C-alpha cells in the first residue's frame, strides 16, 4: 500500500476515535437527559424520597445529603490537603521522608474507592462508633480526596514564578509571610480548581459511601445521622426500586451539576490566567 492510502486509512482511524468518544459521551448524556428530564420538576426537587422499596417522591433529602457531605468533607479536607501541598512544594527536600510522603500520595491516589470504603467501615463506622453517618462518609471521603487536593495544590504552587518569592524575601518578608501573602494568592486559581475537582468527586462518588453512609432516605438532621447523596440515591432507585424514571431524573440532575462544575472550573482557570497576565 502506498503511504498515501495508509495516510487515508489512518485519518479514518484517528477521526473515528474522536468520533466514538464524542458519540459515547453524547449518547450517555442525551439518553439520560431525554429519559430523565420529564420527571424533573420543582416538586421532584423539593419533596423527600419515600425511601425503602418505594421509588416515589423526589430528591430533596438526597440533595441536602449531598450538600451536607460536600460542606463537611471540604471543611475537614482543606487544611490538611493544602497544607501538605505547601509542604511538598515549598519545604520538602529530596530526602527519604519526602519520598515516602510522595509515594504515599501517589499510591493513595490509585487505591479503589471500595477499599477506602472498607477502611472507613472498619475504622469510622465500627471502631469509632460513628455508625453509618454523614460523618463516617465525610471522613472516608477526606482520605480518598486528600491526594487529589495535595497534587493540585503542589502543582499550582510550583507554577508560581521563583522571582515572586525572591522579591518578597528580599524585602524582609519571612518564609511563611512569603507563602501566605505572595505564593498562595498567586497559586489560588490552581488551588480553587483543585477544590472544585474534589467537589465534583464528592458528587460522583458512590462505592465508598455505599458502605459508610447507611443510605437512609430520611432528612439528615445531624452529622451522626445516616444519609444518601444523589449518586447513592440513584443507585438505590435503580437497584432496589423499579422507578427507572426517577432514577433517570436523578441522573439528569447529576449530569447537569457535573456540566456546571466543569464549566465553572474552565471559566475560573481562564479568568485567573488572564489576571496573571495582567489584564
Amino acid at each position, binding site marked *: 500500500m502506498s*503511504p*498515501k492510502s*495508509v*495516510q487515508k486509512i*489512518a*485519518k479514518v482511524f*484517528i*477521526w473515528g*476515535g*474522536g468520533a*466514538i*468518544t*464524542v458519540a*459515547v*459521551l453524547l449518547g*450517555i*448524556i442525551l*439518553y*439520560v437527559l431525554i429519559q430523565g428530564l420529564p420527571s424533573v420538576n420543582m416538586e421532584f426537587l423539593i419533596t423527600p424520597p419515600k425511601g425503602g422499596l418505594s421509588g416515589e417522591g423526589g430528591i430533596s433529602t438526597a440533595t441536602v445529603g449531598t450538600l451536607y457531605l460536600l460542606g463537611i468533607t471540604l471543611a475537614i479536607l482543606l487544611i490538611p*490537603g493544602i497544607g*501538605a501541598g*505547601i*509542604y511538598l512544594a*515549598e*519545604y520538602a527536600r529530596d530526602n527519604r521522608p519526602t519520598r515516602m510522603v510522595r509515594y*504515599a500520595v*501517589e*499510591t*493513595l*491516589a*490509585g*487505591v*479503589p474507592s*471500595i*477499599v477506602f*470504603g*472498607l477502611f472507613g467501615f*472498619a*475504622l469510622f463506622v465500627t471502631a469509632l462508633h460513628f455508625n453509618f453517618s454523614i460523618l463516617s462518609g465525610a471522613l472516608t471521603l477526606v482520605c480518598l480526596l*486528600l*491526594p487529589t487536593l*495535595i497534587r493540585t495544590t503542589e502543582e499550582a504552587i510550583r507554577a508560581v514564578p521563583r522571582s515572586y518569592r525572591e522579591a518578597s524575601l528580599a524585602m524582609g518578608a*519571612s*518564609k*511563611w*509571610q512569603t507563602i501566605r501573602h505572595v505564593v498562595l494568592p498567586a497559586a489560588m486559581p490552581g488551588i480553587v480548581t483543585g477544590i472544585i475537582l474534589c467537589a465534583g468527586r464528592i*458528587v*460522583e462518588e458512590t*462505592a465508598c459511601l*455505599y*458502605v459508610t453512609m447507611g443510605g437512609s432516605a430520611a432528612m439528615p438532621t445531624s452529622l451522626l445521622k445516616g444519609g444518601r447523596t444523589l*449518586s447513592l440515591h440513584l443507585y438505590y432507585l*435503580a437497584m432496589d426500586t423499579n422507578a*427507572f424514571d426517577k*432514577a*433517570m431524573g436523578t*441522573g439528569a440532575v*447529576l*449530569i447537569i451539576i457535573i456540566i456546571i462544575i*466543569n464549566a465553572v472550573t474552565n471559566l475560573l482557570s481562564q479568568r485567573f490566567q488572564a489576571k496573571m497576565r495582567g489584564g
Partner: protein
Amino acid sequence: MPSHVVVDRTAKHVVLICASASFVILGAIFIFTMREGAPALQEIGLYNFLLGTEWRPGQEMFGILPMTVGSILVTLGSMVLAIPIGLACAILLAEVASFRVRRLLRPAVELLVGIPSVVYGLVGMLLIVPAVREIGGSGFSILAASLVLTAMVLPTIISISEDSLRAVPKGYKEAALAMGATQWQMIWHVQVPAARSGIMAGIVLGMGRAIGETMAMIMVIGNSPIIPTSPLSQGRTLTGNIAVEIMYASGIHRSALFSTGVILFLIILVLNTVATFALRRGLKAHHVA
C-alpha cells in the same frame, strides 16, 4: 526570638504534619484491612484463598479466583476497545485536530471523567444489558461490564497519552517531516514510539481505574461468583465481591472480604508502581534526547 520566627517555625511544623497525614492514612488503610483480613487468611490459608474456585461463605469456602479472573477479564475486555479508541483520540487531540475541534473535544473528554459511575451503571443496565441479552444469556455479563468500563477508562487513556504525545520534542517531528514522511508516518514511526512510556502509563492507570470500579460493575455483571466461560457469562469482580456482601457479612466471611480488599490494594500497588516507573522512564528519555 522575634515573633515572625515563631510563626515561621509553627507554620513549618503544621504543614509537615499535614504532609504526613497521607502517609499515616495509607498506613492505616493497610494495617486496618490487613488486621481485619488476617483471621480469614489464617483460617483459609493463602493458597486456598487465592486459588480456590468456590466462593460459598455459607459452606466456609472462600476461594477468590473467580473474582480475580472476573476483574482481569473485564479489565482486558475494556482495554481491547479503549486502547485503540483512546490512542486515536489522543493523536487527534495532540497532533491532528484544529484548535476549534480541540476546544470541543477536550471538554467532552473531561466531562466523561465527571459522569458518576452509577450513571454509567444505570445506562448499562437499561441499554447494554438488554442488548447483550439479544445475543444470548441473561445480559448481565462480562461483555456488558467491559463495554461500560470502556467508556469509563477512555478519558484516563486519552489525557495521559495526549500529554506524552505533546511532550515529544518538536525536533523529532520536524526531522521526520523534513525527510519526506507523511504526517501519519511521522506520528506512527516517530511520535508514538517516542511517547511510548507515557502511553503505557496511561494504559496502566486506566487498568487501575477499571479494576477499582465498583458500583457500575455490580449493576451490570450479575455478581455470580463463577469463573466466566464466555463473554456472555455472568461474573463478579473483586470490588463487587466486597460491595455486594460486606453489609451482611460477619465472622470469617467478613474477614475474607477484607482480605479481598488487601488483594485489591496489592494489585493497585503493583499497577501504580509500574505506571510511575513508565512515566519516569518516559521523562528521562526526553531529557537525554
